[in-house]
């Protein structure tokens, strides 16, 4: 779908700039949740894993795809859940 390498590189470079902009606004207070949350996002590679293991034939690629799905899902599910757990702790106490 991204047949043109120049287009892909353009997206890559622009996204890095967006990343710099967005992340530099996160306060040090939240750097740990930022890490675990961005970690979960790097699990986006699950998209590639699905494409590799969703084919009709059963080959070595399917096996690799299966392991990749397990790894990426741990990353996604574990990352978002633990971030949520941490951010819940930063809520203001009702008494404070």
């Amino acid at each position: 779908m991204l047949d043109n390498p120049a287009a892909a590189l353009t997206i890559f470079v622009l996204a890095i700039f967006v990343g710099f902009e967005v992340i530099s606004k996160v306060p040090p207070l939240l750097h740990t949740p930022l890490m675990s949350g961005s970690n979960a996002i790097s699990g986006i590679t699950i998209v590639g894993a699905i494409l590799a293991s969703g084919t009709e034939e059963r080959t070595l690629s399917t096996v690799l795809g299966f392991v990749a799905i397990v790894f990426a899902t741990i990353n996604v599910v574990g990352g978002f859940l633990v971030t949520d757990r941490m951010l819940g702790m930063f809520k203001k106490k009702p008494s404070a």
Partner: protein
Amino acid sequence: MNQAIQFAYLFSAVLLIVGMQNLASPKTAPRGNLIAATGMAVAIIATLLMNQVVSYTVILAGVVVGSAIGAMLATRIQMTAMPQMVALLNGFGGGASALVASAELLNYMRAGEEPVGIVPLAIAMGVLIGGLTFTGSLVAFGKLQELVRGAAVVYPGQQIVNGLLGLITLVACGMVVMSPLDIAPYYVMLGLSLLMGVLLVIPIGGADMPVVISLLNSYSGIAAAATGFVLGNAGLVISGSLVGASGIILTKIMCDAMNRSLTNVLFGAFGAVEAGGGPAGAVETRTAKGYTPEDAAVIFSNSRSCIVIPGYGMAVAQAQHAVAELAETLEAKGISVKFAIHPVAGRMPGHMNVLLAEADVPYEGLVEMDEINPEFPETDVALVIGANDVVNPDARTDKGSPIYGMPILDCDRAQHVFVIKRSMNPGFAGVQNPLFFNDNTMMIFGDAKGVVLKLVESVKDLA
């Protein structure tokens, strides 16, 4: 249909970016995390609907297994163990990307079809960076979990060996790019990338872990972006580069907070096992004064302001709840309590903040280094709990000190300084801390949790 899927990826990327934007404040952050998770769900569903995905059994099995493990890790992990958790997650992310890139390469080989354009390079990068992130993160995890020795492991000729292996890895990479359908260079590249991950992390000591984890975080993103190039998938490229950028920023913040270059952290073998013995000739003749928690309680009771400086020792002793109780007790007596957070306190960026938040310390009381430093001269008591190098005044004055130039918390400028420490062993950097011998410094030796609990008791008794 595929057009609609493209739009879904765009929508997903927007949600991920908006989610990250919401992390700018603790109030909006939980919502941000939810938005990002929704973005991820959109991308996954869109992918499942693609024409080329025809079999769902393998996918379902993988998702079930992965979700179970992920959920178990996320709910059971202790907050003090968060650095290990993030290291482990980084590893899985990197590993997944290496596997995806490998699977794609195998597909090309089986079809006998030469990948074109940027794809061979992207495959090589995905395998290389992903593989290195996988093993490197596992070693970092092992060090943080204390499964392997945390200190820097060095041996003669290490740099040369690593340099040579790195060179061979790059050559193998080049061969994969030139002739992607040859399996041999791929195996060499894969094996070496896994080996390099181990070799690059073992010479890095425990207290430099914040840098390593941030960097591996960045790598896991870049590896994901590389698989995006392999698959020609814009969603992957965008999300991967976001994470890559995030990791780079955190890495830079951590390096700046130690006044060291990234090269120095990665290859300097700071605090190495073999370095032991300390700087030659600098035999310490002064003695530090030891006090009891009861002594400290008297001084606390006569003060009006206190700044607490938590460090890794607080995490190791699981003392965050005791510390929160102390803060509450002092505040009940009308003593103002603030927490001074050094950027590299602990084993990952923001480690101390999470621990104190867990113990219900309101985040308004957690103050960053630059903001709190001017307040020390007007503060009655500074209480250092399990921190060492981040409060070493030599960093300001002693040009010969290995940590000279590192920004520190100026707690020595407070009226009284209490340091809770297990023993007089020097900190990670292996340098003695003159703070401990200052006239206004009082040492309280013991386990952080036990000492703080006794301190709480004594302060209450004086009421």
